[in-house]
């Protein structure tokens, strides 16, 4: 049982998707119930993994390993064995929990889907399997498989259930993320072959590769090679994470996606790139990050400031939130570029915090849209009167997002900037501007949305239903928990971060 936990977590949603395939068409509630049960069981199991997690251990836990594909003659006369290898460590555990929580809440928030419900939940569950898989796969081939598995469902979820420009936007997402994963694959296989040159046997296991890179002599794995592969990987991450200048697909996606899909895209899908950044770039190529530290930091600052400036002029809440997320993820880049304990930790905190906040904000905006029919800031106003609860949650989420002390955004920013000020004081000053800008655009949008006179057509709208309290309360509680007791996350991630830091040469 314990040994198969991760497999269960990953494939329960897939199993549920298959079962839904046999549910008669038009039976909305049955499909939804199956999806709810499966995602709940998955998050429950993820909780069990967390409860039994050994915080002191550095390596992978709950590992599972089986030979899957054996390809002859791949490296000289050696075979490549692709393994079905799963495991979690302190780095992936928070991502697994994030996936579990956000995916369950997103399914819960999908109650209003009436059009082709059965297919909707099938795609949604496939997406969830892909997401879990990305964070527990130890084999790069397996990781790539799960990464692509997230892409197809997203395409259909946006293309079928999206807004009026859904078709074009779905294609845009597909091509952008498709290109991103192509570069990821190039980088992965390049790493694997170079590691093979050092060890003599070829493997796609990320731990084996990381060890090979950590111990190989610089004559075999040259700095030039590392830097070259790192640039390919960086390009992939920039595309996957929608960083400037490859960011245009994200605001479009959030604008068109149904709100539950936006929750999971903003909350989890957009964190895969960050996971790759920590796991592969920081974990395997720390020297290259050092080498390109200035470039990464500059990219980070550009994203923080540019996305914040663009966010100010947005008329649509969803686009504003998308740019706000990009701006926040810029802080991750800045923190990682510093390559010290605080910076990396801050980056990780920010990734998780931004995931929770995005999920909460997109959920609330979705709930508001359902009642008012619009997400345009100009079309809203005085919402605090007809829906005090939703408006209250929105205010809390916005405050968390702009970094109010006591919430997760604050501690993340503090840590990341502590790290980056030590490494690049001048750049960090510019980066810190982002915090001020975030306060400006979020509070300004809040003020126009919730205060002022309530327009006539918004007069009679209802407030949150009981079922809507669940996502809002759970997400907000987690955001505050991390904010007031950051140790809960720090205990998890610190062993991994120490390993990373110890690998940074000179």
């Amino acid at each position, binding site marked *: 049982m314990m040994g198969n936990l991760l497999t269960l977590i990953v494939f329960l949603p897939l199993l549920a998707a298959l079962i839904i395939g046999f549910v008669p068409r038009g039976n909305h509630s049955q499909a939804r119930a199956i999806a709810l049960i499966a995602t709940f069981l998955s998050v429950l199991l993820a909780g069990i993994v967390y409860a039994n997690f050994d915080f002191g251990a550095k390596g992978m836990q709950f590992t599972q390993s089986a030979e899957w*594909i*054996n*390809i*002859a*003659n*791949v*490296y*000289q*006369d050696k075979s*490549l064995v692709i393994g079905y290898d799963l495991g979690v460590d302190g780095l992936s555990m928070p991502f697994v929990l994030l996936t579990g929580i956000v995916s369950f809440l997103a399914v819960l928030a999908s109650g209003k889907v009436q059009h082709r419900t059965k297919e909707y939940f099938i795609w949604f569950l496939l997406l969830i399997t892909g997401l879990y898989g990305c964070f527990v796969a130890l084999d790069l*081939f397996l990781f*790539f*498989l799960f990464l*692509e*598995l997230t*892409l*197809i469902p997203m*395409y*259909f979820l946006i*293309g*079928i259930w999206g807004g009026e420009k*859904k*078709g074009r936007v*779905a*294609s845009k997402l*597909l*091509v952008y993320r*498709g*290109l991103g*994963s*192509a*570069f990821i*694959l*190039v980088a992965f*296989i*390049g790493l694997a*072959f170079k590691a093979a040159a050092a060890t003599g046997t070829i493997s796609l296991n990320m731990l084996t590769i990381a060890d090979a890179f950590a111990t190989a002599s610089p004559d075999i794995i040259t700095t030039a090679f590392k830097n070259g592969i790192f640039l*390919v990987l960086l390009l992939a991450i920039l595309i996957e994470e929608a960083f400037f200048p490859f960011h245009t697909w994200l605001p479009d996606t959030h604008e068109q996606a149904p709100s539950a899909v936006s929750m999971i895209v903003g909350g989890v899908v957009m964190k895969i790139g960050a996971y790759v950044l920590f796991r592969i770039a920081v974990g395997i190529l720390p020297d290259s990050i050092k080498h390109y530290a200035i470039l990464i930091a500059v990219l980070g600052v550009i994203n923080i400031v540019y996305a914040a400036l663009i966010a100010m002029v947005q008329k649509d809440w969803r686009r504003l939130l998308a740019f706000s997320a990009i701006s926040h993820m810029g802080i991750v880049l800045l923190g990682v570029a510093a390559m010290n304990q605080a910076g990396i930790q801050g980056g990780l905190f920010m990734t998780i915090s931004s995931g929770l906040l995005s999920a909460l904000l997109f959920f609330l905006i979705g709930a508001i849209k359902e009642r008012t029919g619009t997400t345009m800031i100009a079309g809203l106003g005085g919402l605090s009167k007809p829906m005090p609860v939703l408006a209250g949650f929105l205010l809390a989420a916005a405050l968390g997002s702009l970094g109010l002390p006591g919430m997760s955004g604050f501690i993340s920013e503090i840590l990341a900037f502590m790290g980056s000020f030590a490494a690049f004081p001048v750049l960090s000053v510019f980066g810190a501007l982002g915090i001020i800008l975030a306060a400006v655009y979020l509070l300004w949008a809040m003020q126009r949305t919730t205060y002022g006179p309530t327009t006539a057509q918004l007069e009679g709208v209802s407030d949150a239903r009981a079922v809507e309290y669940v996502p809002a309360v759970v997400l907000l509680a987690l955001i505050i928990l991390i904010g007031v007791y950051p140790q809960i996350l720090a205990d998890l991630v610190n062993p991994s971060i120490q390993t990373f830091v110890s690998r940074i040469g000179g």
Partner: protein
Amino acid sequence: MISAQTFTTLSFSGVWEVMAPEIILALLGFGMLLFDLFVSKETSRRISPWLGVAGLLVALGFVIRNFGVVADGGLKELSNMLYVLDDFGNVFKVIFILGTMFTLLMSIDFFRHNPRVKVAEYSYLLIFATVGAMVMSSAYDLITLFVGLELLSIASYVLIAIRRDNAKGGEGAMKYLITGSIATAFALYGMSFLYGVTGVTNVAQGAQMIAQMWVEFKPLLVLSFLLMLIGFGAKIALVPFHMWAPDTYEGAPNPITSFLAVVSKAAGFALLFRLFIWAFGREFNELYIYLAILAALTMVIGNIAALVQKNIKRLLAYSSVAQAGYLLIPLAVLGNGNAQENIWLALGEITFYLAAYLLMTMGAFAILTHVTREAGTESLDAFRGLYKRSPFQAVAMTIFFLSMAGMPITAGFFGKFYIFLGAINTEMYWLAALLFVTSAIAFYYYFGVLKAMYMKEDDAPVTEQKAALPWSLGLIAWVGVIGTVALGVFPNLFLNVLNGLNWFGL
């Protein structure tokens, strides 16, 4: 390389041992020709295709019996080395025979809807074309090789124009005939230089002579190589010699289009591989770059041209051009390291991809035949709302297109990944990257068809199925779906067979 051997006299048993499958099919072809003369028109229409299928099954049995007959990288050659028997040829023959069988099955449906087509003529021409393809894969002499090529080509010209009242068919056949003839002229011209320099037409003897004369006659030999490359490149529709493909694919009856796309193309690759790797041997190191450039051009132009296609058959034609680019990569990267295990790896890649390509192309053509007939149009609009009319057809087509696009857990993905590994192994990073980058561009048009199936229900030319999917097309689709997924999830099903082969003597 095999040394030149003394002349041995032909005996029937000797010929039978080496050529049994070819002899069976050639005799069958003549038998069908006679059969048509002596029985009523009705009987001939009904029986002829089945005679073909039966003969192909018998031939398949003999090919399978021939596996492993030549152990340990040896080969069994026939009379003065005109013809050889080895696992390389056997593997390709299995692909040709299966491809032709699918074509005949698909044709049964085609005959029902085209009463004026001469069934017997069509069937034996197809069998002769297959014999030609088989000769191409086992010829050991430029003359034999040329005979095989012409047998395949001439039969194809007639088959494309088999609907005499169809103007597009005539146009397609004419274009193929003219381009094909020019291509043949180029190839022959190239061969004449080879003969002029070496004084032999045998491939193995030629290889020895080339190795000796390379330094002295390099310009002539390179010229010969390039001329042959142009000639054969046109046959497999490599860019920039691909112009005939879209028109011919569009004009030909669907079964013949799939035959051209699969069997004819596979035969071209068999020929290219044997001729270039055997005859040019180590000197291929100085020539591979031309193939790499052609592969790159083919992938880029094929995929970009496919983006704007509105006709499903033209779209698949360009897609098939692009696939030829992918298939050329294993051959093109061999120059960077042509140790035996690299050649074995490349052969594994090509045959795996061809098997995947066979399954997905045949399946896609089976479904599109039915869908376009129901809709009365070959435009992409024919697929609108297919998910509603027939979920099975929509899901099957989705799997075939995902496989062509190279999405995981399909055979097409693993095939691409395998090719990609080979390219990275020989450090052709740019070509490897281009493989997946152009694949990401291809998402756009493959998903365009999916979009029509799932997202555009309005203005569908038909809303209800008029007739069920005919059993023969259904069978192909099922085999295609099961094969594509099985090879995608468990590639070792096929890899283990390939790993055990002694391809040919070196």
